[in-house]
């Protein structure tokens, strides 16, 4: 197919026209971009510019009359703030449950180690079979005379010791050397018992009062060894 020179020139001319705005198109773009044409523009274009400027003019009072109603409708239609409504109820229980779990685990661990304060340890002993607290823990320490301590009083019964009743092994790291307290189960302490066990475990060797030696289970505790400073 042959293309004449005239048609080529026409195609080139139309391409140039497409790429370049005509004066009218340039003026139209100025008007559409809200730019002023200047004083030298033809009268009809300036009138058109005035019309467009009026259309884009400042808001009138009548147009803004509905502001109060619009704001009221906005407040009524606005959904609840997302963070306050959704995240609150979901995160709070999760945090509370996590803290509660950690607290329970820590409490159980401490109870199993027998390191809780005596009243709590007693409670744990009843609730989850944790080791019983030492009988002399949390009670006033008796004086050095012959008055038997509560431990001795508690162990005077013929029943088995606390460990024997609960079936839980003693948490004593080392058994005492006396066969009396372990074997008989009546836990009647003697001064030599206490001194012996205390000496073995804690190295204090200062002998104890009958009350202090009244550990029914016969195993050394911190109180047994360390609290014997009252001679």
């Amino acid at each position, binding site marked *: 197919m042959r293309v004449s020179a005239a048609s080529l020139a026409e195609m080139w001319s139309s391409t140039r026209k497409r790429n370049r705005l005509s004066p009218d198109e340039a003026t*139209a773009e100025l008007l559409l971009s*809200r730019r002023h044409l200047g004083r030298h523009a033809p009268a009809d274009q300036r009138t*058109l510019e005035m*019309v*467009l400027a009026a259309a*884009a003019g400042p808001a*009138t009072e009548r147009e803004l009359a509905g502001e109060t109603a619009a704001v009221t*409708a*906005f*407040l009524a239609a606005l959904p609840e703030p997302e963070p306050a409504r959704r995240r609150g109820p979901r995160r709070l229980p999760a945090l509370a449950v996590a803290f509660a779990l950690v607290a329970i685990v820590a409490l159980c661990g401490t109870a199993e180690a027998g390191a809780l304060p005596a009243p709590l340890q007693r409670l744990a002993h009843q609730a989850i079979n944790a080791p019983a607290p030492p009988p002399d823990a949390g009670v006033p320490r008796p004086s050095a005379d012959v008055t038997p301590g509560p431990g001795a009083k508690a162990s005077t019964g013929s029943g088995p010791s606390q460990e024997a009743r609960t079936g839980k092994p003693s948490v004593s790291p080392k058994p005492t050397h006396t066969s009396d307290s372990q074997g008989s189960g009546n836990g009647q302490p003697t001064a030599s018992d206490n001194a012996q066990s205390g000496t073995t475990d804690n190295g204090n060797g200062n002998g104890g009062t009958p009350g202090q030696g009244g550990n029914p289970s016969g195993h050394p505790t911190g109180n047994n060894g360390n609290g014997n400073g009252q001679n």
Partner: protein
Amino acid sequence: MLYGRFVLDGDFPEVLRRAAAGDASAFARLWRDTHPPLLRYLWVSAGDAAEDVAADVWLEVARRIGSFRGGEHEFRGWLFTMARRKLIDRHRYEARRPVSPTGDGELLDRPAADDTGTAALDYISTETALALIATLPRDQAEIIVLRVVVGLDANAVAQIVGKSPGAVRVAAHRGLRTLRERVADGTVTSPGRGGVTL
């Protein structure tokens, strides 16, 4: 020099954030800035139904403003896309269920008690200009209002009306040419809204 202006400009992100959090004063600023051009756009396209459609648009904005992301130009594009969809829905609804005019129209057209003469004159001035634009074919009038009144560029308008930027330019240029011819005549007659005299 530009006529028309963006009121919020640099404040827009903060105003939008506060409005999304339910701040009524921030929403009022957004509304004052955007409602007049929205109303003018809707008036040119929907006539007397403009107020109702605008109220629907702002309700939609209130529900969804929390999820909007973008700057002021994006917000305008979002808002006017929403407005155009509501216009289309309304046109479809009216086409299915034509409403016969009642006496209520006369009541609604009654001027408010606090209207002053100055406000009326100002409104007529803007109204006259919009009435002239409204005599154009609907697509040309819509594009000219979006460009001149709302202040969007050809690409943003193209996204709103679903045409190419080139088609938007052609329609706008044709509309302006027609307007200029009518302005040169001095008197424009609109069959739908009565005559407009410049």
